[in-house]
């Protein structure tokens, strides 16, 4: 997706990526406020600090490619092009939400952008990605499926089964591992006998690269290279993005297991100032551009919140709708399952 930058000059797309990252950051910061007010409930997993992964990979995709994500997927959804209002309305449980308010933060879905969710079972999305890619292969379509998952997923059997299958069948999947060094409270070094995750992919004969997940341009470049290789018949590829979440695992997590100075040192590599400072230094962006970009994003977040707040709740009579596919004649009428 090549969004055109607003408030910046169109160059190599970096300004657009900066804007996307700021959108995601501000959106999630607002989510924290809404959560403490009780407007958002359930589990809320923030990707503050990890924005470059979602944005860099998504920038390298075409509109008809597919995305499969995890429960930490606000950024992926926004980068993919879901409207901020629809995502916020989902978090507030409204019908105008991208999943009608039935999914919540962990289950964002959007058919038009081929955004297949929103999966809250660790490693649960990988088989879907393999299948989506299989369907593309069987239909002779040159599409790519990007599948995001965390470092924790690498320990699950499904990860290994899926990498093997994708490689064996030479399927167009881009495996995107967001390695933030922790799976909930457990550090990667305590759960993996081999902590170099790209080696695991390589053992399935999948070309794999490590990339600095705090540098959105590096992520996009690696993803673009991988996507091009996949499209030209190179089979699955694997990106390990080294990143870090600045906040706790979820709003329930007291975050007792990480050292303050570790968190602080990663904040020195915050992907947003890293890029904005570079763009200012390169003369691609002016300080005034940045201010107006931030103002525009703030306005967009305000609008999204108003949109969500003025949204409607689904009538209880529709509770059983969509348990199975409604009969065609009745598609809008709400057949009871």
């Amino acid at each position, binding site marked *: 997706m090549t969004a055109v930058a607003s408030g910046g000059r169109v160059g190599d797309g970096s300004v657009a990526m900066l804007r996307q990252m700021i959108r995601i950051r501000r959106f999630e910061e607002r989510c924290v406020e809404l959560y403490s007010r009780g407007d958002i*409930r359930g589990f809320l997993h923030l990707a503050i600090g990890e924005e470059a992964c979602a944005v860099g990979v998504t920038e390298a995709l075409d509109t008809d490619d597919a995305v499969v994500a995890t429960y930490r997927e606000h950024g992926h959804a926004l980068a993919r092009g879901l409207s901020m209002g629809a995502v916020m309305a989902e978090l507030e449980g409204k019908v105008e939400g991208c999943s009608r308010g039935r999914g919540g933060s962990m289950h964002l879905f959007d058919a038009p952008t081929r955004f297949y969710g929103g999966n809250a079972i660790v490693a649960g999305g990988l088989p879907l990605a393999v299948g989506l890619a299989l369907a593309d292969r069987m239909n002779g379509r040159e599409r790519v499926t990007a599948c995001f998952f965390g470092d924790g997923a690498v320990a699950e059997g499904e990860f290994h089964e899926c990498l093997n299958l994708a490689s064996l069948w030479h399927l167009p999947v881009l495996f995107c591992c967001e390695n933030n060094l922790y799976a909930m409270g457990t550090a990667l070094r305590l759960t993996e006998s081999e902590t170099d995750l790209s080696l695991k992919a390589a053992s399935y004969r999948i070309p794999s690269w490590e990339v600095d997940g705090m540098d959105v341009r590096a992520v996009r470049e690696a993803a673009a290279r991988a996507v091009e290789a996949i499209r030209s018949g190179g089979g699955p590829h694997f990106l390990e993005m080294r990143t870090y979440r600045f906040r706790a695992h979820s709003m329930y997590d007291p975050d007792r297991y990480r050292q303050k100075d570790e968190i602080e040192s990663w904040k020195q590599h915050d992907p947003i100032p890293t890029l904005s400072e570079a763009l200012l230094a390169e003369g691609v962006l002016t300080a005034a551009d940045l201010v107006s970009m931030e103002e525009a994003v703030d306005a967009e977040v305000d609008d999204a919140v108003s949109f969500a707040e003025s949204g409607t709740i*689904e009538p209880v009579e529709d509770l059983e709708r969509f348990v199975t596919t409604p009969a065609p004649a009745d598609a809008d009428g709400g057949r009871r399952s």
Partner: protein
Amino acid sequence: MTTVTFRDALREALREALRSDDRVFLMGEDVGRYGGCYAVSLGLLEEFGPERIRDTPLSESAFVGAGIGAALGGMRPIVEIMTVNFSLLALDQIVNNAASLLYMSGGQFNVPLVIRMTTGAGRQLGAQHSHSLEGWYAHIPGLRILTPATHADARGMLRPALADPDPVLIFEHGSLYNVRGELDDHAGPVDLDHAAVRRPGRDVTLIAYGGTLRVALEAADRLSGAGVEAEVVDLRTLRPLDTATLLDSVARTHRAVVVDEGWRSGSISAEISARITEEAFYDLDAPVGRVCSAEVPMPYARHLEEAALPRAEDVIAAVGRLGGCGGSDG
């Protein structure tokens, strides 16, 4: 008597088990350094060390299966699966190994394993984090299924579960962890074979367990205001079912309503209803009623989730439908 949370009672039971038997150890995701996803095992790593409080990678099938193997090898493992939702990744090990080994080995290999997991909905966690599959597990011969609903059971069920030579699954309802209650200072092991009458009554029997016990008790209180005295039976153990206690109660009340957070079709409530009908048909003055969760993947939106779950008013309405209970509702 001391006031403790349900969580504290569970932790005390773990501590006692670890102290009293060197073969006992706890393993699961984030049970050690993190202190447990729901803080049940908080502090145990410091007390018992990493050999006995073992953090595992995210690999449910492997560590549940390893628990089975360790049990075969002479240990007394307690495996924690964060929630029932993730137990689906270990279903093969639970059903094809834990539940079957003794029988298919002709009685040679028993599996003295305890698996604990959180269950249930009610916290707006959506479709993949809100399952109540304990009734489903109760379908499997070879397993014992426990559903503590009181502090005494939270404290007392683990010890007999560990003493059981066969696999025991303990389902802890997520809405109970923070509930405070009185616990006897000398609270100890409890019996696992009997359902318990939590509230005596003469007009109707409400049958509940785990997370639905509170719903049934609330309904009983409100019914009492309307002149209907409901007896509330807590199943405690879903497999093997204590049918005798149910039949005894129904013989006195002549009416029964089962309150189950599982889906209605093919549920434990269906089993209970069938047993009462098979064995006490002529005691009944009305068909057995059921209040279950709506047959939908759990929705996120609060009002929809509330509508999908068994509520006290649903129980009261179900009692009303039985008719003839006396009182203004009857």
